[in-house]
């Protein structure tokens, strides 16, 4: 029980890994969700309900099922997995990338939903005005749509961040429980819970995850408030 603040090496690794996965997850999800949320809010196209259903599937499916499907679709025996291994020598499952991918799939519906709703609230007239005044489509998107939808974008990103901090089922199925590679906070907590006499460690990690989640939530509130004042 040495190290910083009485945490041992495994615990520190789990905490850092959790934050890393959550950051990667939200950074990768954000641009994708911005594009998809915008398309969903502004356009209707063939197959829209199907895409909508696919995006939302991980929200209603048990995470273990999501993890299992990912294992079937991206694992070594799948076509994609074989191609990936033969061309680049990459094995996705049971690696750090797998933990990030699992988190992305599970938290993606939350961020898309939030962005889409806030973009639907943006008056299309303002976008039209910007276009008429000569701004390009892209410029309009970045200078008008995104700033106006900012509160939804921020809270969506934080939600995705928080969800990926809490991700357990899909991660343990698709990424495993490897210390220092895929053992995030919830997985470490689960592992400690199985061992008699480790209640103290478990409690410590539970507290850490509560604190991290609180900070994330407070940050999002603060960011949204600051935007409102500006």
């Amino acid at each position: 029980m040495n190290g910083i603040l009485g945490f041992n090496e495994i615990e520190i690794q789990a905490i850092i890994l959790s934050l890393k996965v959550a950051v990667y997850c939200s950074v990768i999800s954000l641009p994708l969700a911005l594009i998809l949320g915008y398309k969903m809010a502004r356009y209707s196209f063939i197959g829209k309900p199907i895409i909508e259903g696919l995006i939302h599937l991980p929200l209603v499916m048990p995470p273990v099922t999501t993890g299992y499907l990912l294992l079937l679709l991206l694992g070594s025996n799948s076509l994609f997995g074989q191609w990936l291994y033969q061309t680049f020598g990459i094995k996705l499952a049971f690696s750090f990338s797998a933990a990030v991918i699992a988190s992305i799939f599970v938290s993606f519906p939350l961020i898309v939903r939030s962005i889409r709703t806030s973009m639907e609230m943006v008056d299309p007239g303002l976008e039209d005005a910007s276009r008429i005044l000569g701004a390009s489509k892209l410029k309009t998107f970045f200078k008008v749509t995104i700033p106006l939808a900012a509160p939804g974008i921020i809270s969506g990103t934080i939600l995705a961040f928080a969800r990926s901090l809490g991700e357990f089922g899909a991660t343990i199925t698709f990424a495993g429980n490897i210390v220092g590679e895929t053992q995030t906070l919830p997985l470490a907590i689960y592992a400690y819970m199985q061992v008699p006499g480790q209640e103290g460690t478990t409690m410590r990690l539970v507290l850490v995850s509560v604190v991290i989640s609180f900070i994330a939530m407070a940050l999002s509130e603060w960011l949204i408030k600051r935007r409102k004042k500006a």
Partner: protein
Amino acid sequence: MRLAYRYINTLLLISLSIVLLLSCNNLSNKKQNEKQEVTVFAAASLTNVLHEIVDSFEVKYQASVKLNLASSGALARQIQLGASADVYLSANTQWANYIDSLGFVKQNLIQEIANNSLVLIAPKNSDIQLFKTDILLDLPVLIGEGYLSMGDPNHVPAGKYSKQALENYNLYSKVSHRILPTKDVRTALMVVEMNEAPLGIVFSTDAKSSEKVKVVGNFSISSHKPINYVAAVCSNNKTALLFYNFLNSEETLPIWIKFGFIK
């Protein structure tokens, strides 16, 4: 208002009759229990073999067996908290002794019923050939950049045994950084089945149950603590005693062996 009252009355009546029906059902169950029924709490790793044993038991004694399958620890906790088990089948001695120490086992009716062993497995299409005797020494090389899939040595029983065996061969420290710890032994099997790990350690019974893996090495039984299954009688049900004796009878011997257990 009147109407609402009427609905409430009807609802009450319906729920009352359901409760009555349920309790009647329970009563008749209890009566049967005294005659021919036996409730068996069994470790999940016995699932396949037990289904066959139960089938032949039911035919022979005209009895019916109710199975409750879960991890040995979970079952022990259920019994401790008052679940009515007639026979408890544990995947290790510790949990069986724990139940015995709490006074749930009747008249020392506790016995070993089977043993299991550990094997090294690889996916069916793997290049690794059926073992030379010293394949275990090549383990670190064979694993290479891949993983060795096995139950988490911190809390999964199969993982604990695997760690003991590896330590016995002086291999644990060489492979510990390549271990893929799974939440139970069945997941360890699945990971190898899906070709995600080139090698894994599971019970020989698990290896036997899968078409997608092959055994490439055996761990000597003396390399780890004995993996034994223990039966205990926890009620005065006579059928329970019959079942308990049936588990160690000549008739069930071929079934145990067929599923990879050691008697």
